[in-house]
């Protein structure tokens, strides 16, 4: 009887998660459509654009950090690779953003596979540090290679944007709207990936690696294959977002696209929400974004200090995150929050 109850609770939990995820996507879409017709929503469109960039890295990171337990400190490297891949294709070959996004995701996945051959041999803090090194090395490479624009970056001419239209807007006027919807698509892909990992046998294997990698290997989980695939999948959402942002801003710069701070923000968001949960990614990224934007506007010069204190406090007093804490507090929520 107990088992049957748990199964029914788990089903209910999945159902609730589906509704939450669908509601978030519908809300984001609704606001985008609204902003086309009402200029007063433009502020929300732009702040949600920033939010979705963070969320894309969070959704990728949650797969490798949350489910697999590998602390990737430099996950924004895939945002950068996505942005640079898309920009090279658009700048040199005039490729449109849609194809550039797909290429960005593929290149980021291939890079994740190759980098994974090196860094996934490492565990714990060694892995964390190696991922920082990969991020910083990518930035130095981008700064030093002329083809990638060096430290000046690559900039698209305004004429490139002629062919884009949406709801009566065209060219540069249309970019903000199209970029917004492309980010909603990115977030949708990221959420679906997380739902898949959360509910599949593959995800169960990743959790086994997180709890005890050697034991997982011993009971027959092909740990190498599993964690490589997790790392490759985790590169997709940030790479897509990187491509969109490169297109929206018209320019890629090494320091902005290979940005350790974005990686750290994503880690904090994952931690804050509760790592290895789907709803946690949304809660964490939204909370972080809300806190950051309000501090930035009310205490612009103090924000790093307050930030630092908040991060340390989370690590010391709320190490499981909000969702993790709720799940621990109540047996019922344990099953309902996925």
């Amino acid at each position, binding site marked *: 009887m107990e088992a049957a109850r748990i199964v029914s609770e788990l089903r209910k939990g999945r159902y609730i998660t589906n509704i939450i995820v669908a509601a978030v996507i519908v809300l984001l879409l609704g606001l985008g459509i609204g902003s086309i017709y009402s200029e007063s929503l433009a502020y929300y469109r732009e702040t949600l654009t920033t939010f979705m960039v963070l969320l894309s890295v969070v959704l990728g990171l949650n797969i490798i950090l949350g489910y697999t337990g590998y602390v990737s400190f430099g996950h924004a490297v895939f945002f950068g690779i996505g942005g640079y891949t898309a920009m090279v294709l658009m700048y040199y070959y005039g490729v449109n953003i849609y194809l550039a996004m797909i290429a960005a995701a593929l290149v980021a996945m291939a890079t994740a596979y190759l980098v994974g051959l090196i860094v996934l041999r490492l565990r714990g803090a060694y892995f964390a540090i190696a991922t920082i090194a990969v991020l910083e090395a990518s930035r130095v490479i981008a*700064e030093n290679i002329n083809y990638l624009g060096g430290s000046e970056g690559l900039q698209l001419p305004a004429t490139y944007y002629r062919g884009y239209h949406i709801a009566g807007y065209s060219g540069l006027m249309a970019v903000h709207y199209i970029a917004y919807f492309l980010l909603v698509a990115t977030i949708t892909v990221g959420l679906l990936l997380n739902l898949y990992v959360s509910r599949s046998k593959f995800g169960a294997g990743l959790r086994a690696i997180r709890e005890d990698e050697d034991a997982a290997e011993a009971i027959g989980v092909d740990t190498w294959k599993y964690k490589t695939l997790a790392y490759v999948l985790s590169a997709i959402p940030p790479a897509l977002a990187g491509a969109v942002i490169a297109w929206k801003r018209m320019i890629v710069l090494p320091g902005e696209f290979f940005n350790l701070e974005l990686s750290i923000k994503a880690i904090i968001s994952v931690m804050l929400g509760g790592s290895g949960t789907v709803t946690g990614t949304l809660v964490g990224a939204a909370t972080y974004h809300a806190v950051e934007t309000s501090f930035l506007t009310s205490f612009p010069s103090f924000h790093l200090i307050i930030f630092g204190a908040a991060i340390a*406090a989370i*690590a010391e007093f709320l190490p499981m995150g909000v969702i993790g804490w709720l799940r621990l507090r109540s047996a019922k929520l344990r099953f309902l929050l996925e």
Partner: protein
Amino acid sequence: MVSPELLLGGLTAGLVVGSLYGLAALGLSIIWGILRVVNLSHGAVIALSMYVAYLLSVEYGYPLLASVLISIFFGFVLGMVAYYLFVHKVLGGPELASLLSTFGFGLIILGTLQLKFGGIARTLPVTTATIEVGHVPIRMVQVVGAVIAIAVAIAAYLLIYRTWFGRAVRAVVMNQEAAALMGVNVTKVLMLSFALGLLFASTAGTLLALSYSFTPETGSMYELYSFTIVVLGGLGNPLGSLIGGIILGIAEQLTSIVASGSWGPLVAFVLLLVMLVIKPTGLFAKL
């Protein structure tokens, strides 16, 4: 083609700057080896020590030597306080918790420095006398700094392997419960080790500030160098850190001569990745 004189110059410059990198890395290495905490506030502490020296000598007009000594010692005091505020509670917990709490501590320092000093590069008022080795100019203060760095690394080695405190430290590393049963005050050993780690970071930072200009962000580069060196030299081994630092310093200087200065940092990352793959335990034995 690189001439022999230029090569000699590069080697000497690398040795000089590398011993300072080694000392910085020693601070990270000791904390990592003893507390099992990767101190992500390392770079911020290095930057902080630079600004303490700057504040005292330039803004308050203290003599340079006094400012330098205070800024070095400041790291030790800061370490004792920071241990209880940011480290003690996350020991033995998940790795991520200690990474985040020390990173938070680092952000508080960084935020304070940016608030007070902004992003303008600063320098300390030091003599610019240089000697020239094989057409590569090397500043006198760097040579003095290198000598101090090597002396401190040797002192750290003696402290860990030749004193009662060092024996207590090694006992704590091996088995905390057993050490506690033998009458070692584990918390005190851990606290002092953390303070010692920050002392080495602040010493390196102060000495680096004597020869290079700095901004609040400067520390993050030294932090990455320190990671590389720790991986190169092995955890908690003072002489390993020193030698690892010198290897990195020479590799960086030679790259700058052969290619250009901006490729220098890439050497550190490539070296780090290669080392992590072929021998993540470092070239030298563990503590």
